C-alpha cells in the first residue's frame, strides 16, 4: 500500500489518525477487562470476608439448613436458598426446553417460510418484555390460579419456575433456531432420499447433529433463570426454609439478596453473608460459561 511519493505532511497526518483510532479502541477494550477484574475482586473480597473475618465456616454456610440472623444464636445457613435457586432454574429449563425446541423445528423444518414470519416476532417480543412485568403477571394470574387448583398459597417454586420458563424461552429458541438453519442441506436431503419420514429425519439426523447447540441454549437459559431476581422474588414467597412441596413458599439466592441487602448494616455478618451469596451467584455464572465453552468445542468437531 505504499504510495510512490508520499508527502511527509500527509504521511504524518495519516499515522496520527491511525494511532488515535488504535489508542481509542484499545482504551475501550481495556476498560472491559478492568471492569471485570475489579468486579471479581470486589465481590470476592466482600464475599470471602464472611469466612475470613467473621469466622463463619464455609460448610455451615453452604449446607446449613437454617437461616436466622436475628435470633440470639444466629445461624447463616444458605442451603434453602441454594436449593431454591437450583430447583427453580432446573424446572424452568425442563418446561421451556421442549417448547423451545418445537418452536425452532416449526420455524426451520415444518413451515420455514411463514412459520418464521409468525414465530420470530413472537420470540423477540417475549424477550423484550421486562422482567418486572413477568413478575406482575405471575403474581396476578399464575399465583391465584395455582391457589385455586393446588393446595397451598399458590406462591412457591412452581410459580417461580413457570414465570422463568417463559422468560428463558427466547434464549433457547433463538440459539436452537440458529443452529438448525445453518445445517447443511445435503444432510436432510440424503435422509429423505433413503425414504425416511420427516420425523425420522428430525429425530435421528437433525437433532443429534445440533444437540450441542441445543444444550448450549438450555445452559444459557438456565444461567439466565439462575440469575433472575425480581420476577422470581415476586412470586416465590420468600420463606427462609426448604419447602416440602412445589406450592409452598420458598426463596432463592437472588430473592434473599434483593430483599435483605438494603435492610442490613454494611459490614455486619448478615450483610457479609449476603455478599457471599452474590459471590456464589458469580461462581455459578463462571461454571455456566465454562460448560457453554465445552459444549461449543464439541460442536466444532
Amino acid at each position, binding site marked *: *500500500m505504499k*504510495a510512490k511519493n508520499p508527502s511527509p505532511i500527509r504521511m504524518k497526518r495519516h*499515522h496520527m*489518525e*491511525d494511532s*488515535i*483510532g*488504535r489508542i481509542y*479502541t*484499545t482504551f*475501550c*477494550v481495556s*476498560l*472491559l*477487562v478492568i*471492569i*471485570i477484574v475489579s*468486579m471479581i475482586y*470486589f*465481590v470476592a473480597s466482600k464475599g470471602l470476608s464472611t469466612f475470613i473475618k467473621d469466622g463463619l465456616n464455609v460448610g455451615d454456610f453452604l449446607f446449613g439448613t437454617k437461616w436466622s440472623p436475628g435470633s440470639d444464636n444466629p445461624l447463616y445457613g444458605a442451603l434453602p436458598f441454594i436449593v431454591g435457586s437450583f430447583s427453580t432454574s432446573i424446572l424452568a429449563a425442563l418446561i421451556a426446553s*421442549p*417448547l423451545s425446541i*418445537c*418452536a425452532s423445528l416449526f420455524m426451520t423444518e*415444518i413451515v420455514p417460510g411463514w412459520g418464521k414470519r*409468525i*414465530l420470530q416476532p*413472537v420470540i*423477540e*417480543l*417475549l424477550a*423484550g*418484555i*421486562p422482567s*418486572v*412485568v413477568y*413478575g406482575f*403477571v405471575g403474581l396476578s*394470574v399464575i399465583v391465584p390460579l395455582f391457589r385455586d387448583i393446588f393446595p397451598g398459597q399458590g406462591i412457591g417454586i412452581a410459580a417461580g419456575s413457570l414465570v422463568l420458563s417463559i422468560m428463558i424461552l427466547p434464549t433457547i429458541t433463538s440459539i436452537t433456531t440458529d443452529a438448525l438453519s445453518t445445517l447443511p442441506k445435503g444432510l436432510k436431503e440424503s435422509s429423505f432420499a433413503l425414504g425416511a*419420514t*420427516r*420425523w*425420522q429425519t428430525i*429425530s435421528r439426523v437433525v437433532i443429534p447433529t445440533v444437540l450441542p447447540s441445543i444444550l448450549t441454549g438450555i445452559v444459557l437459559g438456565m*444461567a439466565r433463570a439462575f*440469575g433472575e431476581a*425480581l420476577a422470581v*422474588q*415476586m412470586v416465590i414467597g420468600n420463606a427462609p426454609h426448604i419447602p416440602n412441596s412445589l406450592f409452598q413458599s420458598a426463596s432463592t439466592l*437472588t430473592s434473599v*439478596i*434483593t430483599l435483605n441487602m*438494603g435492610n442490613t448494616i454494611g459490614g455486619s455478618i448478615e450483610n457479609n453473608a449476603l455478599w457471599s451469596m*452474590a459471590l456464589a*451467584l*458469580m461462581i455459578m*455464572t*463462571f461454571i455456566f*460459561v465454562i460448560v*457453554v465453552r465445552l459444549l461449543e468445542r464439541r460442536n466444532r468437531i
Partner: protein
Amino acid sequence: MKPKTVDKIATGVIVTFSLIIVAVLLGLLGYILFRGFSHISWSFLTSIPQTIRVGGGIGPQLFNSLFLLVLTLIITIPLGLGAGIYMAEYAKPGKITGTIRLVVEVLSSFPSIVVGLFGLLLVVNTFGFGFSLFSGALVLTIFNLPLIVRVTEQAFRGVAKEQKEAGLALGLSKWKIITSILFPVALPSLVTGIVLAAGRVFGEAAALLFTAGMSTPRLDFTDWNPFSPMSPINPFRPAETLAVHIWKINNEGLAPDAAEIAAGASAVLVILVLVFNLLARWLGRVLYRYFTASKVTE
C-alpha cells in the same frame, strides 16, 4: 406404529407447542394491555405517586426512566462502539483476543443483580456518588456494554470486503476507512441493535435497586438548573424508574389501588418496549435506504 403415523403425531405435537407459545404471548400482551389500558390517562402519566391514597400517578418515574436511558446511552455508545470496532478491525486471532472475547461473554452472562451490587459497592459507596441517576447509568453501562460491543462487531464484520479494499486502494488510513467507509455502511444495523438494547435497559430493574435508588425527591419541573437538588435534570439525585416502581408497589404498595397502578405502569412499560422494537426496525430501514441509495428488497 407405522413411521407415517409417528410422523403425523410428531408434527402435530410440534405445531401444537408452537401455537401454545403464540397463545402465551397473545395472552400476556392481551392481559397487560387490557388490564392496564383503562387506567392510563394523561393525569396518570404525569401526576406524582401517592403512598396511601388512591389516584397516584407515575409521572416522575416515567421521566426518570427516559432520562436514565439517555444518560446510559451517552456513556455506553462511544465505549461500546470503540470496543466493538477494536474486536472487528484491530484484534488479531490469539490469546489476548480470546481473553477479551471471554470477558465479553462472562460480562454478558453476569446476573444483573450482581452487577447492581458491584455498583453499590464501587460507585455508590466507594466513589461516593450515592443513590443517583449517575450511579444507575454507570451500572447500566456495565450491563449494556457487552451487548453493544457484540452488535458493533457484527455490524462491522457484515460490511463487504470490497468496500474496505477500495478504501485501502485510495491510500486512506485505517481509521479513516473505519470512520468514513465502514461506519456509514454499518450504521443501519448499529442503530437497530442499539435501540433494541435500549429497550432492554428500559425495563431493567434489579441492577437499579441498589444504585439509582428506590425513591425520587419532589421534582420541580420549572427548575432547570442541573445542580439544584429538586431539578429533574440533576444527574446526582436519586431516581426511581418505572420498572423499579412496578416492583416496589407490588411488594410494599400501601395505596388501595396499588394493583391498578401496577397494571397501568406495566402497560406503559410494555407499550414503550413495543415502540422501541418498531422504532428499531423503522430506523434501520430508513438509514439503510439513506446510506445505500437503494430500495429495500425485503
